């Protein structure tokens, strides 16, 4: 057994749970193995999972996720645009699930009217960058995640080329691109940027109790091709919290599905919902 395997294995404990006997590595054990080996928390978690040892923080992901799938999540990289209503909830869900690397882009600061729904917003953060709140949040809930938040807007040329070289590199090295934008103006640009990088895009939007979630594969049409880039219904109907949190959950579920290697369930489709009547239906584009 190598030094890494030994460090992980000796810090693990065996527990008998209702689902069977499991070897578990608690957070102190992850930290101790990282200190011994000089590796990151994320690398220790991956090494543990390879020996069928579950880092305690991911215990309740099992057996919905297999060891192999949890490793895939930790080795995956997400590029997301928007840290508002959808983005805040998405970031929470992806970081807790154990997505290894997340890059997020949002040039906004919090405004008082964000407080109805945006998980990252709080009274003392009004006027401060959403990217800053996001970095604090991820560090507080899962320090294994390599998280980079950019307090800027993603500029994309009509051919899908991302202007900022650093952001272009982050997007190109991602596994999945996530559209958590507000408004329709920038959505087609992001869809083009994902297509240019040959990556799947998971997109979603809400107006009142209505909304959709969709996956767009490179070269295929997506909602942004049809919905336009102008004013939209949320200007009249707003974005109530339950619709936002639900949509982000559906979106996170699709992202995690793709990252776990199970393939998208909404490619070329739109999951439409109407919370005023509690109806859900999946349509083809």
């Amino acid at each position: 057994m190598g030094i890494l395997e030994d460090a992980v294995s000796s810090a693990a404990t065996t527990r008998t749970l209702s689902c069977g006997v499991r070897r578990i590595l608690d957070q102190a054990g992850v930290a101790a193995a990282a200190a011994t080996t000089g590796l990151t928390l994320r690398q220790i978690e991956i090494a543990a999972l390879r020996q069928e040892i579950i880092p305690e923080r991911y215990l309740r992901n099992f057996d919905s996720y297999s060891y192999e799938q949890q490793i895939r999540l930790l080795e995956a990289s997400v590029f997301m645009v928007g840290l508002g209503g959808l983005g805040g909830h998405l970031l929470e869900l992806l970081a807790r699930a154990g997505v290894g690397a997340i890059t997020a882009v949002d040039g906004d600061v919090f405004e008082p009217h964000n407080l109805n729904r945006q998980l990252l917003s709080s009274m003392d953060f009004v006027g401060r960058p959403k990217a800053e709140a996001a970095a604090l949040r991820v560090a507080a809930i899962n320090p294994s995640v390599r998280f980079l938040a950019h307090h800027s807007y993603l500029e994309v040329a009509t051919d899908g080329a991302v202007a900022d070289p650093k952001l272009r590199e982050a997007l190109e090295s991602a596994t999945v691109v996530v559209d958590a934008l507000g408004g329709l103006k920038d959505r087609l640009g992001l869809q083009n940027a994902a297509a240019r990088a040959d990556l799947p895009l998971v997109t979603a939007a809400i107006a009142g109790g209505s909304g959709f979630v969709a996956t767009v594969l490179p070269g295929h049409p997506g909602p942004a091709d049809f919905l336009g880039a102008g004013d939209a219904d949320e200007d009249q109907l707003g974005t109530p919290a339950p619709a936002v949190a639900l949509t982000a959950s559906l979106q996170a579920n699709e992202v995690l599905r793709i990252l776990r290697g199970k393939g998208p369930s909404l490619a070329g489709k739109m999951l439409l919902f109407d919370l005023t009547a509690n109806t859900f239906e999946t349509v083809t584009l």
Partner: protein
Amino acid sequence: MIITLKAFATLQKYMPEHADAYEVPEGTTVQELLDRLGLSDDQVRLVFINGAHVSLQAVIAEGDRLGLFPAVGGG
């Protein structure tokens, strides 16, 4: 013939009283239906018949379920 209508977001206020059993003449197209409901093509960005995206020229058949989706972009 009888069809079913399902509208989303701001389009819901254009729905007739019995949207789940709405009567239209045989051979009605999507465009003609929108005209009957007082909706412009600009308001309706996506139309689905029985779960499949269709054009405004699509002809509606007895028992079809139509979905009407507007510009939705909130996050």
